[in-house]
């Protein structure tokens, strides 16, 4: 196996589900900069497509246009093929810790967070 292929296999994929493009864009740029492969979705419909099973970690906003982040979380966690994927829920709501626990998420982070905080959490899982 050549070096390039090894890198591809090693690269972890993070799926960001957030309906705000002004969060999605810089967050994707930053996480890519830290060596992750980033995919994104802006709503529940988009997220329910084929992306999920090929993801190593999901960063999920609690408030989306079409559905609640909690519901997406519950859906992923109730599916045999996807329930092992770590989910970090994020929100500007300071009750996010409780919301995330109730939805069955692995972790949570309150907005506005800084990248150091987020990276620390991501590294706990992948």
């Amino acid at each position, binding site marked *: 196996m050549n070096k390039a292929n090894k890198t591809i296999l090693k690269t972890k994929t993070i799926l960001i589900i957030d309906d*705000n493009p*002004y*969060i999605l864009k*810089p*967050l994707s*740029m*930053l996480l890519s*900069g830290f060596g992750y492969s980033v995919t994104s979705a802006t709503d529940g419909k988009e997220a329910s497509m084929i992306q999920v099973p090929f993801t190593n970690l999901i960063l999920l906003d609690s408030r989306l246009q079409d559905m609640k982040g909690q519901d997406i979380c519950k859906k992923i966690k109730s599916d045999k093929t996807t329930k092992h994927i770590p989910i970090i829920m994020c929100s*500007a*709501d*300071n009750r996010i810790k409780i919301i995330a626990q109730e939805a069955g998420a692995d972790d949570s982070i309150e*907005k*506005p*967070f*800084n*990248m150091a905080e987020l990276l620390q959490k991501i590294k706990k899982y992948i």
Partner: protein
Amino acid sequence: MPQSKKGKYSSRLSNTRKQGTHGSFRTHEGFYRMMIESLDGQSIFTTDKGGVISSWNSGSEKLFGYKEKEVIGKNVSLIFTPEDIKKNIPKKELKEAKKKDKVVEERNHIRKNGSLFWASGLIYPLRDEKKVHRGFTFILINRTEEKAFDKRKDDFISTATHELKTPVMSIRLFAEIVEQQTKKMGDKIGLESVRELNIQLDRLTALMNYLLDVAKIQQGKLKLEKTFFDVSVFIHEVITVVKGISTGHIIRFTKSTPKEMYADRERISQVLTNLVSNAIKYSEKGTKVIVKSTHDKKNIIISIQDFGFGIPKSEQKLIFSRFYRANSAIENNISGIGLGLYVAIQIVKAHHGKMWVKSAVGKGSTFYFSIPIKTK
């Protein structure tokens, strides 16, 4: 109304009741009745020792919808909500008024037609000239509108702050990208500017969190997640974080015997961080800040001493109120919004603890807070 005046007034009122047939007192009774009736924006009424209503002014008629003759001889519990009656609130309040000489209360009361209104009230014990307890005086004011306004205001602060968080998050992320780029390019001025930008963003975030906390406190929504933790380890952690931000002061920590605290760790950390940061803010660089933890039988007491400007006696109580800023803060151009100590004392109170200050101008201040000890 000051306590002393009130005492005089209530004993005189009971005088007139006892000796109402006496000529000079009849004039008094007429005068007092006129005075109380003229206060028709406020409900003023009396009860006997057991809470049976004995007088009822026109303000009470207006506020509750009951005529005087309908309520005389009835128990005061008729103005309390069924929930409060279940909790035995009417009896408890009378007991407390007798014990403490005054009860200040804010609660929902119920009208004749069953509707509720928010009232702030005072209950005083009525005593005759021999200090024998005869009954109670109630003074109630309808505060429904103020309450609704306060709620709207707090809801607004809460929503607005919440909405502000998303753009702040976005700015923070873009700032981080700029920081990485300027680092790569070796652009010193750019990097310096981004760091300043981040400091200001931190301040903005802290400010929003304070506003959210205040709104939560006002709405009674401050929830605590209590756990047991080691006090010394906890204090060390907080001091390390503060030292990382401010390097100009010598921060010492002296502990007594180690003790476990049962509290919301994050919230108490917020309190201690605030007090240590204040000690730094309000004293000259190079001076000492001493953090101590002690305990007595019932409480763990943490104190934070500085050798700074100090707080004059006249301001020592005011500094714990909302949006109050010490004169020394304004004079010395120290930034802040006057919410830190307010939030801190509310957090401590929510833990059934106390917070107080000892200070002398020019010598420095020591802030104390206590948290009740709980055994596992």
